[in-house]
């Protein structure tokens, strides 16, 4: 292969293997369109073939359920996922590797979307910035879908005098809303910002495994239609937790949920491996752990938790699937299955997943704060300690979702202990935030406003959390609206507002435009007000004793539900305003410089739009992050401890 002329990569002579055809080879012909064709085509083929093989009207010997629909739908889903990934070109790389055909530098550049213009967003592109934007769009789509269902739910609950939707459909929209929002919130920060920002933040040219990066996003794209399609086939009538054995009574839409989770878990696992490897091995020269920005810690922690937790969720769904399709009995108590097994497997993911959502958000806020307070992050070590503490405890608290299941009353004591211990590391994070706010003149821009909103919500969510972490109080609150309000304050109040802040903060870097301050703020505060209305009054409903996931209830709950519905509509309008601001600013907002916030951290030192490989020369880090601020004048006065001149100086 030395016959081929060597390529010049960053002023290095690199010998190249033989170049087969044009750079990129078959990938030149593959894009989202071929993906759709492949997916839909294979889905149709699989469906037709299966329906030929299954005798019509064949019913399961165990459950008498007509199985034809199940098999066909399962085949269609599998065909869609495989065909779509094949059409996108996900299998080209592995097959090339297996055949031992190395790709050249030109291939890699084509795969990274060099001089492809807009069309690279529709291809299996390996550039981490493209993947970040793709994640952003997918997040919007999934979030919008979940939000739409949320509006339907609140409409049903607001119309206390009638059933707007049939109970079955209502159950399916709460389930679909739940899982759609969980997916949206999991990827909301780790996806767009984790992929777009982290490599630049640590001074790398790309992710560790660019192809896996593309694989993770397109697997996610493949999973979304599975979820949406389930809504038209009876839906997920079991809440997002899809508890067995209720889930095995659901119509075939359940298969859509299970396939979504299985695919999504693979996508998340790959993304986690990729991010963690990048952070571990590709930090710039001189970026020791004490010089690594806190956001990198946050993403690392989230990836770690996703890495060990998601397989449990995935396997819980694989077992459910085989119960459904092959009549196994993991969760069928008649045949020796156990409902507690499902609950354990599910919550082994279920609780770390909460921190997968919250930790990156908190980390983004800690990135935003120093820039806008012109002040170093207060007690960086404590921030790290908080994140580490949360990760360490996250795997030991799952059973606090099962206090009332009676699976093992004795373990309620240790789980109550571990759960309430978590409030300590979380408290660290709060301390870091207020310590950074302390004595700072705030530059009130949209991202900083989001920080205030998040801290406010998180305090409420955290305080209500200690009621639920405590078994005696949980004996009243478990399964009531109080729980719903609590985790919305945590996941939405922190997750959604944090995502808004983070996107507003990194918008200039991602798009070259600045997010419109005025309308962005209007959107943010509208959402904030609506949020307090909705979930504040939901707390009241929970205290009065309204169970969750009901569509009819005693009229003593009417007033709080009406308020909730009004608030929910307000949230919807606010979100749309924010979205409108994003659309406008993205299309024709004013261009801005590479570093509009005058930030000192590495990702802002790159030019905008960011060139293909971020840094022409890899940077060398010589300082700790967040070196803002001036020496504290009070130190002088402390030394000459004389009270009088404090008054004059203190006014600042």
């Amino acid at each position, binding site marked *: 292969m030395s016959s081929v002329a060597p390529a010049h990569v960053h002023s290095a002579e690199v010998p190249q293997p033989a170049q087969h055809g044009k750079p990129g080879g078959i990938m030149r012909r593959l894009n989202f369109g071929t993906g759709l064709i492949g997916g839909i085509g294979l889905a149709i083929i699989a469906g037709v073939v299966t329906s030929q093989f299954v005798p019509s*009207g064949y*019913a*399961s010997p165990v*459950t*008498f*359920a*007509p199985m034809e*629909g199940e098999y066909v739908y399962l085949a269609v889903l599998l065909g869609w996922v495989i065909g779509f990934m094949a059409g996108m070109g996900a299998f080209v790389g592995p097959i090339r590797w297996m055949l031992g055909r190395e790709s050249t530098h030109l291939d890699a550049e084509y795969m990274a979307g060099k001089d492809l213009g807009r069309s690279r967003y529709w291809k299996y592109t390996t550039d981490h910035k493209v993947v970040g934007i793709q994640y952003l769009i997918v997040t919007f789509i999934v979030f919008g879908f979940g939000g*739409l269902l949320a*509006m*339907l739910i609140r*409409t049903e609950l607001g119309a206390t005098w009638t*059933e*707007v*939707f*049939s*109970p*079955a*459909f209502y159950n399916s929209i709460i389930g679909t809303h739940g899982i759609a929002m969980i997916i949206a919130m999991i990827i909301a920060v780790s996806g767009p910002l984790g992929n777009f920002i982290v490599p630049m933040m640590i001074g790398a040219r790309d992710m560790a495994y660019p192809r896996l990066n593309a694989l993770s996003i397109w697997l996610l794209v493949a999973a979304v239609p599975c979820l949406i399609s389930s809504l*038209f*086939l*009876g839906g997920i*009538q079991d809440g997002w937790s899809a508890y067995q*054995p209720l889930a*095995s*009574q*659901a*119509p*075939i839409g359940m298969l859509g949920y299970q396939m979504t989770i299985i695919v999504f878990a693979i996508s998340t696992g790959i993304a986690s491996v990729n991010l963690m490897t990048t952070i571990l091995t590709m930090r710039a020269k001189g970026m020791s752990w004490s010089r690594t920005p806190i956001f990198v810690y946050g993403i690392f922690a989230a990836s770690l938790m996703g890495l060990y937790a998601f397989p449990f969720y995935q396997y819980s769904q694989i077992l459910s699937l085989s119960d459904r399709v092959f009549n196994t009995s993991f969760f*069928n108590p*008649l045949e020796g299955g156990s409902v507690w097994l499902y609950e354990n497997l599910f919550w082994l993911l279920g609780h770390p997943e909460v921190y997968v959502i919250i930790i990156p958000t908190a980390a983004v806020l800690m990135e935003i704060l120093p820039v806008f307070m012109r002040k170093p992050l207060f007690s960086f070590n404590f921030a790290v300690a908080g994140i580490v503490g949360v990760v360490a405890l996250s795997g030991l608290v799952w059973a606090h979702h099962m206090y009332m299941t009676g699976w093992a009353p004795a373990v309620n004591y240790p789980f109550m202990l571990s759960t309430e211990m978590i409030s300590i590391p979380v408290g660290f994070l709060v301390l870091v935030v207020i310590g950074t706010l302390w004595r700072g003149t705030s530059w009130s821009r949209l991202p900083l406003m989001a920080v205030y909103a998040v801290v406010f919500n998180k305090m409420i969510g955290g305080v209500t959390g200690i009621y639920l972490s405590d078994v005696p109080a949980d004996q009243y609150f478990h399964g009531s609206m109080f729980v719903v309000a609590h985790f919305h304050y945590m996941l939405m109040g922190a997750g959604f507002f944090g995502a808004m802040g983070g996107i507003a903060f990194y918008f200039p870097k991602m798009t070259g435009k600045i997010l*419109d301050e*005025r*309308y962005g703020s209007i959107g943010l505060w509208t959402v904030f007000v609506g949020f307090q209305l909705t979930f504040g009054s939901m707390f009241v409903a929970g205290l009065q004793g309204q169970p969750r996931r*009901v569509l*009819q*209830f*005693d*009229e*003593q709950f009417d007033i709080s539900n009406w308020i909730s519905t009004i608030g929910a509509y307000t949230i*919807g*309008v606010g*979100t*749309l*305003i924010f*979205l*409108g*601001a994003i*659309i*406008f600013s993205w*299309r*024709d907002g004013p261009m801005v410089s590479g570093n509009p916030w005058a930030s000192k951290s590495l990702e802002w030192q790159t030019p905008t739009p960011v060139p293909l490989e971020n840094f022409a020369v890899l940077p060398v880090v010589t300082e700790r992050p967040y070196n803002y601020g001036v020496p504290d004048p009070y130190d002088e006065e402390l030394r000459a401890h004389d009270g009088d001149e404090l008054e004059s100086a203190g006014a600042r």
Partner: protein
Amino acid sequence: MKKFLVILATVLAGVLVVGGIGAVSSISQEEPPVLAATLDGTTMDTPNNGTLPHATLDLSVYPNSSDAVPPPKAGPYESAWLSGQPFYHPSTTIQVPANSVVTINFTQYDSGGQIYNPFFAHVHGSMDGTMTWNGKSVKNVKSDSVGHTFTVHQYPESSQPYFFLSVPLPMNAANAKTDKAGYPVDPQKISVTFVTGEAGTYVWNCEFPCGDEYQEFGGPMQTRGWMAGTFEVVA
């Protein structure tokens, strides 16, 4: 200004999408047509409510739909995979007058078997704790020969009177003589008489496992219009 228009357009578009989808999905799944008990002019004495007007209502249970008996239309997609499942005919949205004596005459064409909970093999909430089964008055049927049950229970409104009515509908023998549509020629005839109180809304469903999936409680058992519905007492 342009900014404002873009924002406005986004908000309006969003509202339209949500409203449209909500309206469509709400309309596409309204309940089956109301089936009201008709006052037949007569009155009847009750043990502790004195003499009250009397109303009657006819319901049948079919094992599956046929040309003679069309399947219920409920929801946008249910009927696709519920064909061949049992259902109540002609409707599951039932209305009875308040403060009166109501007699429901059931005609049960379906087979049956063992019910999970013997409690529902007994008559509950009827006027004298009995029902009339093929002419003779009984308190219960054998718990291994139940076809379906008609169980009305509470709606979560504390303001309306508590109401609980459960009637077991005995099964037809598996080898019963059937007509060409596949229905038994002499189905089980059950009639139950009960006293209604003040107005209120309730729901009812079948407590005999006659659906599919786990514990045969999926499918029609969890679909309004087939084996479940609403039961309204109107003033």
